């Protein structure tokens, strides 16, 4: 078991999850609430990491974070081949999962409930905080867990922009690859088991989040349709 890789993976996933929550929730809210010009294009771009090879995502991120990019020129942030780059790559691949689940959950909140809150004196921010988000919380949490699990398993894009430097940017998936290359199978076995277990727990938890039947059922038996 490569403990430094395990620790690094946790660190990367934690940062990626934070990014996912903030950016993903913001994007999901915007998409659920507003009709933006070019909405379909924006949605498609967010979903692209689901179908693109990790090397392509890695290549885009290389350009975005490379020597001539605004990130370096304006902010002086040299992220390439550091662990924050790994966190960013992980967040990007996890984003579509988070956005899709959160957006569906937010759109699924009955607009009548939000209207009721408005007539009861709530501002839009209060409606969001006291009605929309609490009612969408299962979906948001499910999206976050799926996104984090995907971030934890990120391999290709990370390899391209953070490299595979032991102790510094080598996360678990990369360490497994190294272990197999070096025929350290006992090492690889433990790490594979840990990764599989984490994946299993994540998916099991997401499944548990699906609301029990009938809990949020609101009577729709009125004669006026």
């Amino acid at each position, binding site marked *: 078991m490569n403990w430094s890789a395990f620790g690094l993976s946790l660190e990367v996933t934690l940062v990626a999850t934070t990014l996912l929550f903030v950016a993903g929730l913001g994007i999901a809210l915007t998409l659920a609430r507003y009709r933006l010009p070019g909405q379909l294009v924006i949605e498609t771009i967010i979903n692209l990491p689901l179908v693109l090879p990790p090397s392509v995502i890695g290549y885009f991120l290389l350009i975005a974070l490379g020597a001539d990019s605004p990130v370096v020129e304006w902010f002086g942030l040299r992220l390439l081949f550091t662990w924050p780059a790994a966190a960013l790559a992980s967040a990007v691949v996890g984003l579509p999962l988070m956005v899709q689940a959160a957006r569906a959950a937010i759109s699924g909140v009955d607009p009548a409930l939000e*209207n*009721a809150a*408005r007539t009861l004196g709530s*501002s839009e921010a209060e409606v969001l905080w006291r009605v929309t988000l*609490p009612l969408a919380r299962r979906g948001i949490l499910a999206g976050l867990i799926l996104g984090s699990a995907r971030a934890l398993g990120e391999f290709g894009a990370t390899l391209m922009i953070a490299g595979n430097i032991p102790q510094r940017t080598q996360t678990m998936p990369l360490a497994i690859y190294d272990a197999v290359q070096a025929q350290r199978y006992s090492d690889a076995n433990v790490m594979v088991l840990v990764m599989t277990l984490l994946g299993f727990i994540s998916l099991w938890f997401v499944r548990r989040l699906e609301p029990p039947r009938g809990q949020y059922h609101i009577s729709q038996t009125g004669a006026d349709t």
Partner: protein
Amino acid sequence: MQQSRLRVCVEKQLAAFKLSVEFEVGTEILVLFGPSGAGKTQTLNAIAGLATPDAGEITLDGVTFFRSDTDQPINIPARKRGVGYVFQHYALFPHLTAMENIAYSLWRKPEAHKHALDLLRRMHLAPLAFRYPHQLSGGQQQRVAIARALAAEPKVLLMDEPFSALDRAIRESLHKDIRSLQMESELIVIYVTHNLDDALAVGHRLALVSDGCVQQTGSPTDVLRRPASRESLRILGVRNVFEAKVIALTEKELCLDWQGLLIKASAQQAEVGEVVTLYIRPEMISVTSADRFPDRQSLYNKIIGRVTGCLIGQHHRTLTVRLQNECEVEVYLPGLADDSSSLSDGEEIELALPRDSVNVLSEKSAFHPVSSRQRNSRA
């Protein structure tokens, strides 16, 4: 009693028709009654601030909620209008208990808890305070919804089909509650329904709405007794509506040519030669036989017809009779076991039609005239 007044005048183009309503409400219960899709809910949404009209003005005691046709348009957001709204399917917050639902609008106030408890007791909900909406029956959910709307102490309470999904007994007790709540809090209540029984049970005043327009307003008794137009008759579901031509008019009576059948009615507003709408309430017609014809024959029209159907209802039987002029009338026979229960299809019977129950609606005397051409263009 008439301290507060809400004035509503809104226009809004909707997908199927144009909403164009104008009315005033004081501290009373105004019922907006009409068929589904007449624009009643849209009207409530405009008052609450949940929908923006294209034009018009909404004011409450001099405070303008909405105004379009000035240099400075006004549109106060829903949260600042202080209008309580009871939604059609209650719209209780499913993640909050009954108590938390009621206290929703009070969360920043220190006395919230006590106030919410008072309301719970008032609405007979105290034992259910910690239940979630899905653990409550329809009637209980409705009580929570009303209490929640009242917690914010609104001057205006809007109710959209509040009891459409509830049993008769629960409706009756809720109607009583609404009436007394309205009195105690001096509320302006606008109550939307498409159920006439509800409308009559709860309303101080009735407004008939169809195709986005208010067709007639008045006390429930007045509106029921004197529908002002053919459209009002249609909204109220009045039976036996026909057309007839006025052939003579004296101080005492009106002679009508009812598609070939000559009948007399008591004197009403109309003009000779005019084609009028004629309606006869089914409960006013009686079945007679030669020996049992009512005494003062001059007050009745005697008509012969053939039975074409008989339907058993809760309070009466409905007999369909085809008259000699090929018009089919409905007749309500009181009770269930009466000797005329032996009436069978095709049997020829004689009907007694009191002159003073032959009602005539002259377009010229109409309160809110609505020509059929206008109606068609809106439909």
